[in-house]
């Protein structure tokens, strides 16, 4: 028999830990209550969204595709929001909680490797998170029935949600390996989630002055000595001018790492609204998608301020339409991977360094 290292993994080992974790969790009634509450809350939000967007308040034809996509987008965002709230509770106490209860060391001394314990716990918390997602699927399908969303994009959205929740579970697990006390790791996990979702947005806003600069820009503008010709069109010329520009191409990634942006950006563009802002693209997902891609493109050093019907000026600086979500998703997954790596390192035995104030048993 060969000595197995901390990173040795076997399916059987992971399953042992996962089954143990799930058994412990499922038998507590809290779990069932949480699922029921979740179900009711998502149902309520779906109902409210329908009520608002199918009413006369909106003042447009409620069968327009963007109305359907708005309903879908809001329901998906809400499910993601709840998922980000719940996932940390599933994993953020998994390791230090066990250590406090004195059950971690009894697993560590068995043939299970550190990686099997960590992956088993990650899998268990992810399965629990997926259970919440599964409860929301009926409502996501109902939202899809509002129109404007294809079945393929429903599937890809669900897959993305699942991956994001896995990353959040992994981050929670990492913090539970870091701190000795369970409240500390829970708080840190929520701070991490808030950093990805809200604080990054605030940081994006606050860095605007820092990324603004006075640039020499070539403007295609109405000539100062312009005279109106018969057609009423303007006379436009090229000139160079110094104007203040916000170089969001330096900070767009602050938006891209946001799980909400990841989900929105990954939704396929609607066929109607492909040419810039149009009536087809007024749903929140599309607005976010366009916004983050514009931020990524940045202001450039040529601008057109001349909208003449006869003169064909230089083409608009093309919007960088390449998707942003792979970057954001990669960052989230990478954070999760680092957390898992760290947790495995912390669970390796024999331990050399103990975190301050912890005992092995």
């Amino acid at each position, binding site marked *: 028999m060969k000595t197995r290292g901390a990173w040795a993994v076997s399916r059987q080992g992971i399953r042992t830990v996962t089954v143990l974790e799930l058994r412990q969790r499922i038998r507590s009634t809290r779990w069932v209550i949480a699922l029921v509450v979740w179900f009711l809350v998502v149902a309520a939000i779906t109902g409210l969204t329908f009520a608002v967007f199918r009413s006369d308040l909106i003042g447009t034809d409620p069968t327009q595709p963007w109305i359907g996509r708005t309903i879908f987008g809001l329901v998906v965002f809400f499910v993601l929001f709840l998922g980000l709230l719940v996932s940390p509770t599933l994993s953020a106490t998994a390791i230090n909680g066990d250590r406090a209860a004195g059950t971690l060391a009894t697993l560590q001394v068995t043939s299970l490797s550190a990686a099997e314990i960590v992956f088993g716990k990650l899998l268990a918390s992810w399965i629990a998170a997926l259970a919440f997602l599964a409860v929301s699927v009926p409502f996501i399908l109902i939202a899809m029935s509002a129109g404007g969303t294809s079945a393929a994009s429903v599937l890809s959205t669900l897959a993305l949600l699942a991956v994001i929740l896995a990353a959040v579970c992994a981050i929670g697990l990492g913090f539970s390996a870091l701190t000795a006390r369970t409240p500390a790791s829970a708080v840190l996990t929520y701070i991490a989630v808030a950093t990805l979702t809200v604080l990054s947005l605030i940081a994006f806003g606050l860095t605007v002055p820092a990324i603004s600069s006075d640039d020499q820009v070539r403007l295609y503008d109405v000539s100062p000595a312009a005279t109106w010709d018969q057609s009423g069109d303007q006379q436009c010329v090229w000139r160079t001018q110094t104007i203040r520009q916000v170089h969001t191409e330096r900070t767009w990634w602050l938006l891209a790492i946001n799980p909400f942006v990841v989900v929105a950006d990954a939704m396929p563009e609607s066929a109607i609204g492909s040419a810039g802002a149009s009536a087809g693209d007024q749903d929140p997902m599309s607005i976010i998608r366009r916004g983050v891609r514009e931020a990524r493109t940045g202001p450039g050093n040529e601008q057109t301020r001349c909208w003449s019907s006869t003169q064909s000026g230089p083409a608009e600086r093309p919007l960088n339409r390449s998707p942003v979500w792979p970057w954001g998703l990669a960052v989230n997954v990478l954070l999760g991977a680092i957390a898992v790596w760290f947790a495995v390192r912390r669970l390796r035995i024999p331990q*050399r360094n103990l975190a301050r104030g912890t005992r092995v048993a």
Partner: protein
Amino acid sequence: MAINAEGDGADPAAGVVATDVHRSFGPVRAVNGVNLTARKGAVTALIGPNGAGKTTLLLVLAGLLAPSSGTVRVAGLDPVTQSSLARTKTGWMPDVFGTWDTLTAREVLTTVADAYRIPRAVARPRVAGLLGLVHLAEYADRPAHVLSRGQKQRLGLARALVHDPEVLLLDEPASGLDPRSRVDLRHLLRDLAADGMTVIVSSHVLSELDELADDAVFMSRGQTVASETMAEASSSLRSWRVGTLSLSTLTAWLTDADIVWRPAPGHRPGIDLPHDEPGAVLVDLAGAEQASELLARMVGARLPVSSLAPAAGALEQAYLALDEERR
């Protein structure tokens, strides 16, 4: 008292051998130079005051903590470099107890069996057998958290035995056990040792260990201060209590015979003697042979002796003789 850090020539590849083991937690030197040999097929008692480093030493032996320096061999394996292999041969029962709350006793044991990769077909009868062995068969399907402290302790013992280890490390296994369970534990450990297992038991209940342990290792302030076999402990000089119907007659005879005596605890100091009352004195004797010799002489002198017995357990006396302070 014989110091035998090298052991009694037992095969070093078997059992447990610790050589100059140190382990510190920051500034705290929990284990600070431990030399220990636990023979295969014998029960070794690990004795020491609170904070002596017993638990830390057992964690090092179980492969949970790396020693800061020094080497450890458990069943011939190094728990640092051959961690997983050494773990499969080591059973460890912690002092503080945690069980997975919502699992039943049987599930706890099958989970541990899974964790040791024991095939289900082998594990099932083994788990049933272990539950019977620790007298938990009727609680097998109740959640572990409703078990009493002593029952949990016994479940923990079964858990340490699931994978049939070669080395068994028990950290205060007797705490919380009722007298019946203590006797059972003693018999169980003696049987396991007879089957060739190496058993190390840390405990404070010295009178228990007298009958349980073959060898004793004393620890104080992170160091092994002495280790000896029970035979040595019983043969080394220790106090015996002589009961008599007439203190004055006995003490006069002892003084004449040049035998040093002192009043037994609970009796008035020697100044008040002699008086013709029942009582007891302590004398230091090296082992049972000297005791029987003395008894023969006293009976021969027709002294009114009513009893002669060790004043305390062998280990207790050896322990107290170390005169090390509690931390």
